[in-house]
């Protein structure tokens, strides 16, 4: 079913590509959000990803690598968003949404502590490169095998393992700086 959709999308079948979009947009948005930490940026990255994928779909040689290919496009889109972030004239401010499950400021001391911890983490995470963020998200959040991460990020598996170590060390260092 999926390979057929990818094949059809490669041949220019827009309905097939739409099906691929629908089945992947949620996961892609969450990955983007974890990497970027900003809903609007994540949404833009998702949109850019699918646009680019549709433009270049016919160049995809192996349908089995569609998800890895899409993941790589998505990370490039995240990288672009990160660069744009420093140039935004107006930053969108996220208002608390009682239904979105996120921590918000409260009078509960325990919750405040957690929120403060989240702030430290987010600031530390923002110090990392997109590649470091991506490898941590793909491994620790999405629990993807190293072989699959390698397909998304490009380098061989051995390099991915060392990148995981390096990214983790960079995060620890950033956390230490943000906690001072």
């Amino acid at each position, binding site marked *: 079913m999926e390979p057929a959709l990818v094949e059809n999308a490669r041949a220019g079948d827009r309905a097939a590509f739409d099906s691929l979009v629908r089945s992947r947009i949620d996961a892609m948005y969450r990955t983007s959000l974890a990497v970027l930490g900003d809903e609007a940026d994540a949404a833009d990255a998702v949109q850019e990803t699918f646009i680019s994928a549709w433009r270049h779909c016919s160049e995809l040689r192996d349908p089995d690598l569609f998800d890895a290919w899409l993941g790589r496009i998505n990370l490039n889109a995240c990288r672009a968003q990160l660069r744009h972030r420093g140039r935004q004239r107006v930053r969108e401010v996220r208002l608390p949404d009682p239904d979105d499950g996120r921590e918000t400021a409260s009078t509960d001391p325990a919750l405040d502590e957690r929120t403060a911890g989240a702030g430290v983490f987010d600031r530390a995470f923002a110090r990392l*490169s997109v590649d470091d963020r991506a490898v941590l998200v793909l491994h620790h959040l999405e*629990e993807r095998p190293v072989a699959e991460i390698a397909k998304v990020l490009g380098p061989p598996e051995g390099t991915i393992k060392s990148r995981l170590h390096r990214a983790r060390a960079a*995060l620890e260092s950033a956390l230490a700086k943000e906690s001072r």
Partner: protein
Amino acid sequence: MNDELVPIDSDLRSQLARRSAGRLPEGLLVDVTYALDAVPVSAAGLPRLRPVWRGPRLAAAGLGAALLAVLVVAIAFPALRGGPAAVPAGYPANRALTASELNSLLAGPPLATNTALVVSATIDIRMDVCPMNRYPTVGVIHGIEPQICVMQGGLPPLLTGTTTTGIFALRYLGARTFGLLGQVTPAPDSRIALGATDDWPLAGQTFLVNGWLGADDLPVSCVSPPAAGDVLSPAGEDCAYDDWLSDAPTAEGIAADHAAYAGSPQTSYDPLSLRGNARHVEAGGMRIIDGLDPHTPVHGVFVVRSQAEACSGALAVDSRGCPAWRVLARLADLSLTAPSAVATLPPGPTSTIEPVTTPAVHAPSPTPLALPTSSDGAAPLGLLGSGNRPLTEGEFASLWAADPAHLSGRIAIVKGPVPTGFECSDVGSVASGSPISAPGCHPLEGQIAPEGYWVVKIGADGKFTIVGELTVPSTGFVFTLDQVNAATTLKRGDLAVVDGWLLEHVPTCDYGPPLPSACGPFSEIASMATDNSPSGIGVQQGAYQQIIGVAGEWTIDGPPVHGLFLVQLTNTTVGTLVVRLEAVTP
């Protein structure tokens, strides 16, 4: 189950899960679908190539483009350049080229592909000329013959009306064809280029900035290198670099933003604002196109556009917008070839040609010669002598005396020794419309090539530029395709005249942006065959389609065409199509 080297960290996982929690934004799926609708159909889902062309196509895309680049470099910087160079005073910071200066420039040594320049001219808006599949036609430069085509890139606004007069930033695509980077909003004083610290025009305007383009490293790295994008609408991102335009080789204000950007929380600032003596700009794509190293600030006059309509993908559906300054090109350092005092004859009517003899230069021919021309009077074809042989000196002298402007810029096949050019001294008789005899035109002293068959380009001043030596078969002058395929002596780079059919094109380079690295700005792959079946030799068209694609002629989407073609070979099955050749007719 994940049993990798680094175990899953539950604390880290919970933090990341928190970051990624929440609902998919309402309307995102609809937005994506809407944005996909806006993607041009031609950019997606292109039909796959017929298998028979795949081999030659891929080889041609890679090697043919490389050859084309080599050819462009070779002929752009020849050892033999015609005439002394003269840089127009004040260009480009204070004034643009005039249309006639542009015409003179094109009559000299060939421009390198993607050369950017600025010209003050009137464009006749016409859609019925200069067919090209990659770019739609804007029109032609008013009052210039042979015509100079202007093509439209993806940058709004489109020019409309019947004529538009102004200052235009252009990129050279090939064969008297330019792509429009934009209509320039000049500086509000005697200059046309703004300084880095001047107020820059907003709202999608295109303008020039005289300053330094530099870049700072960013704390991000690239999985893949940045893409150039379309040459007329280059991609903005430079991935790991933050580009700036400054009035000096340094930009302290940018560096301060950079430091803030790397920290947390991130500092917001107006992305269009002046940061000390510089502004943040996006120059990733043009750096690749113009070959600018991000590690070294470079001075020049840059074509800049206020990119206010959308974010990086230029999507109309992006509601927030992503204001930025997008650098489109660096204007080339140009020099104009000074016209020769003895070879600037005004074009004369063909009917005044006095018969000259061939091959002797100084003796009359029994019959007048006529150039192969298309119905609209353009000069689209390379030249052979009558009877499909090299052009003789006598034929050339006769043609030159009749209509030098019609020869300017053409490629011709001649037999050596090749003189440096021709001059005609009997100006008065041409100007008065009375017959001019061949004795008035004679080869200039000196030779630029010895015995042999040569491919030359004809300058407006009557001087030749050597493109290369022609390789000929053991018997005769023209290769059949079977001879090319079977030849063991042909090698990479050889120029050959090939008799064959040129079949329909395959737009392999219309996938972008970004364009595949093998693609030139409008490269096409065609197939040459011994008949109208798809076999024989794959050829990368390059600028060829511009040369033959004129009104009344075969166009790139037309039927197979039979003829003699000048091909620069990559090997015996792949080559670059330089020009279609036609004989002058007695």
